[in-house]
């Protein structure tokens, strides 16, 4: 057909290899089943609906990103998944069992630095295993393995205050993984990092995910980050927070930074922009140009 030749590439187009990978992914067992989740916050003189009828399934060893404009309730969602907040309606099942409060089967990495400042890096990683009842020596062995995985064995005896932001988050990942969780929840974990460190951390995370049997649900507001990392992207819409679309990312793996300019990447990106910032272009044109007279022609 002639017409498709002139059409821009669609985010729905998948190469045969990618389509095959998604078929395999869908065949894997469901680790987390989210069933029509709703969350209502009481406010003065009414209530705010943060989440409304959110349903999705995460398959084993899947990397899912959750994306949406600010205020769409993505942080609320991940906090409910972690068990830190109770949903108003609906339920979350992990391996078929309903979530009732926080648990070691769902590890979490927060945006802020949440390492325990009074513990050394190694003791931070040992925290989870020791809560599980492991002996100190067994937890020590375990912690060393996970520190080696994130490349920080040399800093085992440092205190968190002595580490850079990126290193702190690597320790936080190791600490969460040391519990052998079924699911690793990540709430904008690289949001506070500078662009270069963030790119590095994304690369590290994919390496870790490749080597460890863990399913990841990753919250972000960075479109490129979501496309670079995810198998599927859950797009939320704000007010109320609802599922807008579940996108299967057609970018083949292994992911490389060079793919940022590729056609599949661009297709997903423009779709995401359409879903999340539909009016951004129009609004730019509407900006009043008050300062133009002073600025003169110096600025194009």
């Amino acid at each position, binding site marked *: 057909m002639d017409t498709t030749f002139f059409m821009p590439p669609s985010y729905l187009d998948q190469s045969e290899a990618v389509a095959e990978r998604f078929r395999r992914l869908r065949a894997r067992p469901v680790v987390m089943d989210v069933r029509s989740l709703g969350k209502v916050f009481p406010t003065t003189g009414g209530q705010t609906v943060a989440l409304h009828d959110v349903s999705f399934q995460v398959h084993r060893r899947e990397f899912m990103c959750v994306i949406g404009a600010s205020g769409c309730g993505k942080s609320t969602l991940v906090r409910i998944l972690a*068990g830190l907040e109770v949903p108003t309606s609906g339920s979350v099942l992990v391996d078929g069992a309903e979530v009732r409060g926080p648990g070691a089967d769902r590890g979490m990495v927060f945006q802020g630095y949440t390492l325990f400042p009074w513990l050394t890096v190694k003791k931070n990683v040992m925290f989870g295993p020791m809560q599980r009842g492991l002996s100190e020596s067994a937890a020590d062995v375990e912690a060393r393995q996970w520190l080696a995985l994130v490349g920080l064995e040399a800093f085992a005896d440092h205190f968190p205050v002595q580490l850079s932001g990126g290193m702190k988050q690597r320790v936080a990942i190791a600490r969460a993984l040391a519990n052998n969780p079924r699911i690793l929840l990540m709430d904008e974990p690289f949001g506070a990092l500078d662009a270069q460190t963030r790119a590095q951390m994304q690369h590290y995370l994919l390496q870790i995910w490749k080597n460890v049997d863990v399913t990841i649900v990753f919250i972000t507001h960075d479109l490129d980050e979501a496309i670079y990392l995810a198998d599927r992207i859950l797009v939320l819409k704000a007010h109320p927070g609802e599922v807008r679309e579940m996108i299967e990312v057609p970018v083949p793996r292994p992911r490389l930074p060079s793919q940022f300019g590729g056609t599949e990447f661009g297709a997903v990106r423009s779709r995401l922009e359409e879903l999340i910032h539909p009016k951004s272009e129009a609004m730019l044109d509407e900006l009043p140009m008050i300062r133009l007279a002073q600025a003169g022609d110096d600025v194009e």
Partner: protein
Amino acid sequence: MRDLFAIRKELPPAWNRILGVAAFALPLLAWCVVSYVPAVWHPLVKIDKPGGVSWFSPGLLVDKPVFREESARAVAAGRARPTGEPANPIFLPAPDKVARALYTAFTTPPRLQGEQWLYQSLWESIKTIIYGFAISSAIGVPLGVLCGSYAFWSRLTEPFVDFVRYMPAPAFGALSVAVLGIYDAPKVAIIVIGTLFQQILVVSNTVRKVDPALLEAAQTLGASRRSLLLHVIVPWSLPDLYNDMRILLGWAWTYLIVAEVIGVSSGITFFINQQAKYRMFENVYAAILIIGFIGLGTDQVLGFLGRRIFPWKNPRPSRFRRFMLELFTTARTIDASPSEPSERSAA
């Protein structure tokens, strides 16, 4: 020079030291000037030779106008002119006298039989403080931690504590003597009453400041409630609690002076009152200074130990030399050390 007065900026280290020394040197200098430069104050005359004035005797202190009047009268009557030198009132002894008293107060035996040596008085005071503070802390710290961690205990305890806190501890003096007798027990009780109720509130407020993100992180790592209390809240609060204790210990000293006049007067307060009766004011000053030295000394030692005990608050290794420098440069360094920035995004 402008930089020295920049708002909320660190001073150059040299200036830290200079100002730290000046903080003590300036009051001392003012005291020296008042004591040694007769033109500044010296409202009295210390009689050297009584001359023709019958009621003068060597060493007597009289007002300047009285001295002038009496000597004029003596000269007019043809008697010998009295001599004397300008002097300060007896309650303001010169620094050298107080400095000597700092030593002699320890070496002079008590005047009356049954009175105590200075070191005995001091030791008694210190014992009272230690007992009072230990009893108060044994109750106040655990209760404060519970109140800061559990809303249940906070609601049950704090309203009453707030109520009692406004009652001045000395008001319980008569009562505690009636209940506990006249010796040491009521004094310890006053210190406990003065410290405990503040302590519960201070401790619970400190514990309440624990970063909720750390508690959530621990929960996602499988920590139980008991574990949150023992392995997150307590270790997180320890350095701040340690500092609270340093400040509260200072309050305990304040209550000491009140406590010691209850029942049988004792300890350093008794020494001070006795010396004032004997009009040995240099000993009074010496005793007050000794309390100051003990207080500042314990605080600095505790501060130094604190930096050792909690290395994660201040990862640089501290050395003895820095301890000596910091004696005059910074107080309460633990408070000033940067805490973890909590960059939690509003959900």
